[in-house]
C-alpha cells in the first residue's frame, strides 16, 4: 500500500465504510503512531487534509480521523473504500486482503512489542488467508 494525494474530493465515487475504530487510544502507542506518521493536528477535524491510500490491488481507501471533546486526538478512525459510481462492493475477502496490507504497515510503524510476527501468527491462528505461516 502507499499513501496518495488528490487535488479534489474525488467526485463520482461513493464511500463504503469497511472498518471503524472508535478507541485508537486503547493502546495509546497506536494513536501516537498515526499522529506522528501522518502529521495530524487536533485542528485537522475542522477542514484538514483527506488521507488516501492505494492498496496493491489498485483499490483506493480514505482514512478519516475522528476527534471528540475530552479525548486525545485522534480518538478513532474510519476506513472507507472508494467505489466508482454504482459499481458493486468487492467481496469481503478482497477488501480484507487490502486491509491486511494496512494492518501490516501500521504494526511495522507502531513497533516495540507490536511485531509483524505477532500479527502474522495471530492471523494464521485465526485463519486469515493472507497471513503468513509463522516461522517456528
Amino acid at each position: 500500500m502507499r499513501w496518495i494525494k488528490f487535488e479534489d474530493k474525488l467526485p463520482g465515487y461513493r464511500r463504503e465504510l469497511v472498518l471503524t475504530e472508535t478507541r485508537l487510544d486503547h493502546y495509546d502507542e497506536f494513536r501516537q503512531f498515526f499522529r506522528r506518521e501522518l502529521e495530524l493536528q487536533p485542528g485537522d477535524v475542522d477542514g484538514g487534509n483527506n488521507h488516501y491510500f492505494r492498496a496493491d490491488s489498485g483499490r483506493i481507501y480514505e482514512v478519516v480521523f475522528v476527534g471528540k471533546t475530552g479525548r486525545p486526538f485522534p480518538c478513532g478512525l474510519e476506513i472507507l473504500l472508494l467505489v466508482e459510481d454504482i459499481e458493486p462492493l468487492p467481496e469481503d475477502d478482497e477488501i480484507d486482503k487490502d486491509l491486511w496490507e494496512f494492518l501490516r504497515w501500521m504494526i511495522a510503524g507502531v513497533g516495540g512489542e507490536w511485531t509483524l510476527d505477532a500479527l502474522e501468527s495471530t492471523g494464521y491462528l485465526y485463519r486469515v488467508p493472507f497471513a503468513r505461516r509463522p516461522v517456528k
Partner: protein
Amino acid sequence: MVTEMPPIVRDQYPFQAHYLKVNGRIMHYVDEGDGEPILLLHGNPTWTFLYRKFIPILVKAGYRVVSPDLIGLGRSEKPCNDYYNSLLHHTSNLDQLLTKLGLKNVTLVMQDWAGPIGLGYAIRRRENVRAMLLMSTWAWTDVSPFHSSIFPWRMMHAPVVGPYFLQRRNALTERGLWLSVVNRDRMTEEVIEGYRFHMQSYDERGAFLRFPRMIPLGEKNKENTAYDIIKQIEEQLPRLDIPALIIWGEPDDVFPKEWAERFYEILPRAEKPIYVNAKHFIQEDEPEFICRELIRFLRSLKE
C-alpha cells in the same frame, strides 16, 4: 438485523424467546420451568445458546431456568456505540432483569464475563443470591498469562486490528470457540452456526471487540479497562459468604486452574474445586457433568 432462526439452530435451541427492556435496551432471555430460579449467565462471544444443553436438564430436575443474552450479544439489542458496554451497565442490566421478573433467592451460574457481572451483582444484592457456580472466570485486576500476551490475545483486539479480526472476520466465533474446547469434534458446523447466526454483520459484532478491551491488564492501561470496578469486586470477595461451587477445566488456557484454587481460598463458603477435562467453553465440553454437580450441590444446601 432481524432473522428467523433457521431449523439448524432451532432444533438445538427449542426455547421460547422472551424480551423485556432493561435500562432502555431490549434484552432477550429464556425462561423455562418452575421452581427455585437458576440464572445461567454467559460471557463473550456467546449467548444463551451456550447453555442449550443445561436448560432441559435443570428444568427436568425441578428448577426455573432463566438465561439472558447480554446487551450487545445474541438475540438482545446490539447498539452501535461504545457507551452501553461497561461492567456497570451489564451488572445493572442483570439487576433490572431480576427485579422486573421478581426473582428472589437465585442461583448464579457464571463463566467468562458473567463472573465479574454476576459477582458484581452478588456483592450488591447479597440477600437475593442463594448460591453460585463459578467456571472459567475471574474477579481480580491482575492478568492471566493468556490475556497479557501480545500473541494472540492483545494483538487480536489492538486498535484497528481488533475490528478487523473480531468484527470483519468474526474470529472468535469462527475459530476461537473451536480453539477453546477439548472435544473439538462436538464443535460441528451446526453448533458454530448456532453461535454465528445472530451476529452476522460487522455492525452487530461490536461487543466482540468491546469485551476484550475491558479486561484489566494489571496496573497497565487501567484507565482503558474495567480495572476500578473489578478492583471493588475483588476487595469484597472475602466477605461474600454465599455457598459456591467451582468447576474448572484442568487444561483451561484462558483462566488457569490455579484461579479456581484462588476462588476457593478467597470465598468463605466455597466447596473444593472440581476439575474436568475442559477448556474455556466448559459448557460445551462437560454440560451433563456440570448440571449433575450443580443439582447435587443445590440439594445439599437444603440438608
